[in-house]
């Protein structure tokens, strides 16, 4: 038990062979989001989108430490978590474009991605929903030595879901890893303006669970903190809390230019872009040749291009292709 939140170790020892697949996954997420933005403007992606740019190191770091039989519940800003968990880019892109080959047949769209076979309980369109879903998934996981991860934002820490489920998970000794992606803004509103006490990790510590802040833009730090947190949740079993300090590089949703943010704040965080930081660490500290990194990026770009092409060629979900039934039998 932790009386006050600690800061997780920087995890600077992530070696190149382990780090490169994680960088690759972050690059895939970033490229995917940029493609979705483009396809939204072309009218291929519908409704709205909430892009994950800037937060890639959180979901990639956490999911890199999971194993079969573990569960993840994510948010409407969930493309990153889905890709981090291994949902194929083609199936995710097709879902966002409402195609029959989408991971959910084009029924859900950007905010409602579910892939239970890969452990993705779902992405939750209402703030905080992922917290309870993971708490419940932990009731299942506890039987098999698994864990459940809840991803949610700073905004969710003011919902009843947060307070009720943290308490529930502690008193029921559930193996949940609560991961708050504190990106400093709940929709258009700065976290500090609407969060009493101002310290999210401290709130979790008050419920009597181990709670830490971690640099959410450093993949070595998030993966190291995740390894420790997941091992603790699994072996105890019991909940653990991680507050990943990160930044939403774009607006809340596709219609938000995010002009409410101070320019210097944005500039400072853009200098801490998680992908650029990791590339610099690999090239500088670990001596990975620049050509190898460039090849990795080119490889991701090719993979994504092919995935999008295939997704675009699939038929749209329509009354001709989809006959929903009200009930499971």
């Amino acid at each position, binding site marked *: 038990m932790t009386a006050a939140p600690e800061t997780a170790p920087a995890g600077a020892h992530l070696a190149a062979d382990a780090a490169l697949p994680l960088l690759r996954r972050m690059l895939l997420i970033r490229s995917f989001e940029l493609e979705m933005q483009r396809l939204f403007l072309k009218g291929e992606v519908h409704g709205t989108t909430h892009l994950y740019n800037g937060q890639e190191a959180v979901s990639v770091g956490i999911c890199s430490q999971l194993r079969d039989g573990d569960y993840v519940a994510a948010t409407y800003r969930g493309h990153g978590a889905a890709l981090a968990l291994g949902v194929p880019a083609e199936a995710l892109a097709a879902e966002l474009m409402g195609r029959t080959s*989408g991971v959910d047949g084009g029924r859900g769209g950007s905010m409602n991605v579910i892939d239970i076979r890969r452990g993705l309980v*779902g992405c939750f369109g209402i703030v905080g929903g992922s917290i309870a879903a993971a708490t419940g998934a932990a009731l299942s996981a506890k039987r098999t030595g698994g864990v459940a991860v809840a991803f949610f934002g700073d905004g969710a820490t003011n919902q009843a879901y947060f307070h009720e489920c943290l*308490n529930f998970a502690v008193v029921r000794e559930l193996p949940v890893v609560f991961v708050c992606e504190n990106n400093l803004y709940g929709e258009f509103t700065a976290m500090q303006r609407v969060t009493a006490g101002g310290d999210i990790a401290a709130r979790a510590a008050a419920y009597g669970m181990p709670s830490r802040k971690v640099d959410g833009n450093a993949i070595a730090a998030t993966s190291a903190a995740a390894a420790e947190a997941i091992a603790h949740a699994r072996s105890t079993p019991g909940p653990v809390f991680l507050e990943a300090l990160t930044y939403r590089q774009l607006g809340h949703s596709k219609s938000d230019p995010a002009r409410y943010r101070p320019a210097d704040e944005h500039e400072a965080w853009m200098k801490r872009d998680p992908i650029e930081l990791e590339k610099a660490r690999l090239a500088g500290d670990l001596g990975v040749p620049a050509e190898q990194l460039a090849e990795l990026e080119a490889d991701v770009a090719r993979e994504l291009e092919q995935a999008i092409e295939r997704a675009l060629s699939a038929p749209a979900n329509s009354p001709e292709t989809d006959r929903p039934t009200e009930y499971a039998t």
Partner: protein
Amino acid sequence: MSATATDTEMEFRTGIAEAMAECLAEDERVIFYGEDVAPGGVFKATPGLHEPFGDERVFDTPISELAMVGAAFGAAVTGLRPVVEVMFGDFMTLAMDSLVNQAAKWWYLSNETTPVPLVIRSAVGAGGSFGAIHSQNPAPWFLSTPGLKIVCPAFPADAKSLLKAAIRDQNPVVFLEHKRLYSLKGPRLEDDGDTLGTARVVREGSDVTIVALQRGVHDALAAAEDLAADGISAEVLDPRCLRPLDLDAIMRSVEKTNRLLVVDEGDALGGWGNAVLGAVAQHGLDHVDDLWLLHGAPYPVPYSPASEREYLPNGESIAATVRERAGVRVTTTA
């Protein structure tokens, strides 16, 4: 149906307890939790489960309806079959996101890959002077939500057979137990193969069909007995489930009697009673000479016993309205 009668009776609450015990025993995936359920619950409907099945399968929770139902959703989509007791139906307002946005929609949203087999049991209905915030029937809130099933038993044997069917069902089920039924005794009819969405004619008649739910079924039966003395033959139909609704059974009865009274202890507008009338009007107007609703008032359920009695339909008011509408016609045409 595989119903066989034995020579014993049981209370409604015993039906609940036995269904829980049988389902916990037959399926390891079934878990049961809620506020104060380990000692048997405030309505004493679930005694004797905590000890044999252990604290990992039957347990007390914090007073956190949102966490309870939200966790049930998460547990259900990952392979468990949770049964949650929400102490009073009115408290389900606190859990609506999990129930309406998650549990009811995941089957559809997951492209029919992820069923949500959970049951929310809850004590509902007026008549006990619990006041406005512990007496409402919440069924109408859920009625317009595709994906949910809504079960409303009226008899002890149905409480058992329908709860077993609900727990074995692959879908989220709201199981509503009327507070004025827990102590009701009735025949023990073991039916291990009951199905959700099937109505039952509980008294046959030829002049008017009375559709009622839960406690209202017993009021309707009393009224039918009373009306029989006047030569009015009332058929009483218990839908048992509101969603899916066995409209075929209702239509068959109305085709026979040509008159339909629905008794709903809640308010008319948006209520389940009006929904039934609307469906009959849409699909069977040719068969209808008269159809109407006896319902509660458009204000919250009163606390004072005298005012609460006045608020609720009962056997006398059901018989009176039938006499006034169908009864008068029967006499004048006779």
